[in-house]
């Protein structure tokens, strides 16, 4: 009875300290990686933009070594930077840079999202929020369609030998066809059968990329129960419907969520690809294409980052749903 309780029960300070450590422990490496990426990016901006900067400086009358653009073509970017040290900062202030700085991209992103939203023009044609919303809508329908097809296909494959032998090879072949080649065909064909607008074909392209990871993951998940578990149900004379609902489906839930996270990212990529080659004027894919055609790299980069942020948000939402579901099922620990 002489043991000091203080050594066995953690005090509030120790608990707080542990929480702080685990937060810092989780965030710090991420921040370090982020800092390294941003650092490399900043360093790369100078060599990427130096020719543009020197051309501009020459036109405004500054002394540039070598003097003509043609002569400069013969010289490496590293030498140009060494010979014109005063003009290197110009690389970081181009309107249409080869490679914009992180700051420029962030500025463009803010100007086309937050700033417009503050002005009440979030749904204007120039706003990325509007274009992201267009992309998100198609992604959602494509994800829903692809997930449904993937799960249905997996159930058919697990329960039917014939389907397993006939469907699986086609599913694999379907993913070897470049989606960029397939996307225009899907749009042309759906226009032929009288489908107006781009929403449906985009969702189909999106579903085409999305169903496969769900199919593969769910086949694995539905087959994850071992022989002993299946034998146990057999000793109860359980029907195959009962073994599906009580054993196979719950066993597949962790696999399902892993697949859904890959699937939603694939669905987003599919939608953007569906917006690219088709003359669409709405959506993040269309913004990327238009930015390319009009030579506004900042618009491309801003749209790319908007797409990446969107993907991050979607995957995070699924991650939260996964944690909540597994916890509810008692498998969260």
């Amino acid at each position, binding site marked *: 009875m002489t043991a000091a309780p203080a050594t066995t029960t953690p005090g509030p300070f120790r608990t707080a300290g542990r929480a702080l450590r685990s937060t810092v422990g989780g965030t710090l490496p991420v921040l370090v990686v982020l800092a390294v990426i941003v650092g490399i990016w900043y360093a790369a901006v100078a060599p990427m933009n130096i020719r543009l900067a020197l051309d501009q400086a020459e036109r405004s009358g500054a002394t540039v070594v070598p003097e003509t653009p043609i002569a400069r073509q013969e010289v490496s970017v590293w030498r140009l930077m060494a010979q014109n040290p005063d003009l290197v900062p110009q690389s970081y202030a181009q309107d249409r840079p080869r490679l914009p700085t992180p700051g420029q991209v962030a500025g463009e992103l803010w100007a086309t999202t937050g700033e417009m939203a503050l002005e009440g023009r979030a749904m204007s044609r120039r706003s990325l929020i509007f274009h992201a919303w267009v992309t998100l809508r198609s992604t959602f329908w494509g994800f829903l369609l692809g997930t449904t097809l993937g799960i249905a296909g997996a159930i058919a494959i697990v329960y039917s030998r014939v389907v397993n032998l006939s469907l699986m090879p086609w599913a694999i072949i379907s993913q070897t066809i470049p989606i960029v080649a397939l996307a225009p065909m899907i749009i042309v064909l759906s226009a032929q059968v009288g489908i107006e607008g781009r929403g449906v074909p985009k969702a189909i392209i999106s579903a085409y990329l999305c169903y496969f990871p769900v199919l593969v993951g769910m086949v694995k998940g539905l087959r994850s129960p071992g022989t*002993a578990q299946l034998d146990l149900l057999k*000793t*109860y*004379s359980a029907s195959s419907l009962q073994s599906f609902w*009580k*054993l196979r489906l719950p066993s597949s*839930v962790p696999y399902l969520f892993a697949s859904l996270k890959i699937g939603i990212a694939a669905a987003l990529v599919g939608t953007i690809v569906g917006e690219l080659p088709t003359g669409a004027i709405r959506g993040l894919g269309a913004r990327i294409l238009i930015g390319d055609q009009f030579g506004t790299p900042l618009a491309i980069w801003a749209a790319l980052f908007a797409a990446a942020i969107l993907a991050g948000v979607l995957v995070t939402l699924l991650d939260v749903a996964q944690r909540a579901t597994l916890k509810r*099922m*008692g*498998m969260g620990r």
Partner: protein
Amino acid sequence: MTATPVIEAKNLDLTFQTADAPVHALRDVSLSIGKGEFVSFIGPSGCGKTTFLRCIAGLEEPTGGTLTVNGMSPDAARRARAYGYVFQAAGLYPWRTIGKNVALPLEIMGYSKQEQKERVDRTLDLVDLGGFASKFPWQLSGGMQQRASIARALAFDANILLMDEPFGALDEIVRDRLNEELLSLWARTGKTVGFVTHSIPEAVYLSTRIVVMSPRPGRITDVIESPLPAERPLDIRDSREFIEVAHRVRDGLRAGMEEDA
């Protein structure tokens, strides 16, 4: 005890066709198990002890001979819920609480919610897991998980309990305690038990009859009636009778191995 056999095998054969050669898992196995007996099957791996148990459960199809359970074919007996089966791994569903795990067979067999609850409570009490119905499997030790899986096998009142090395993965201290509990459970419920093991002391301690088996082909080499009393404290294992029976089992196992070599 031999009045009406609950399980009766006559000249049972089971041959698995494999790619290189047929495997004789069971050859000419004849055995009759009476109501309320506790029969252990012991032998080295490949002797067909588990296969025989699976035949009784209708999980394997014998290729020759006859086998009846409660006077029916094993398949019919299974549909009539003649037996509960306990596997080596507890195999509890991680997404179900202990109570829900025990209720699994009851759900499948269509018991009412009210009856499910009563039976879950009763069988969990029977295996000493009264307060654990709402816990998840990972919150329980290995021994407790196996007790829950025994409760699951008992939940629907089958009169036969088939156990395939149920305590094989547990440490000796836990195993001793579970052996003791199993005996008292058996005394209280009067079930007929078929018990596969590779532990000689376990077989001798638990059984009214010990069936010694040998591999290649899988067959019965000796059947030993236990002279031990029904009341068996753990220290009965130091008694002379116990050691003599254990000796005979060991001799039977050795004879089977030498014949094979």
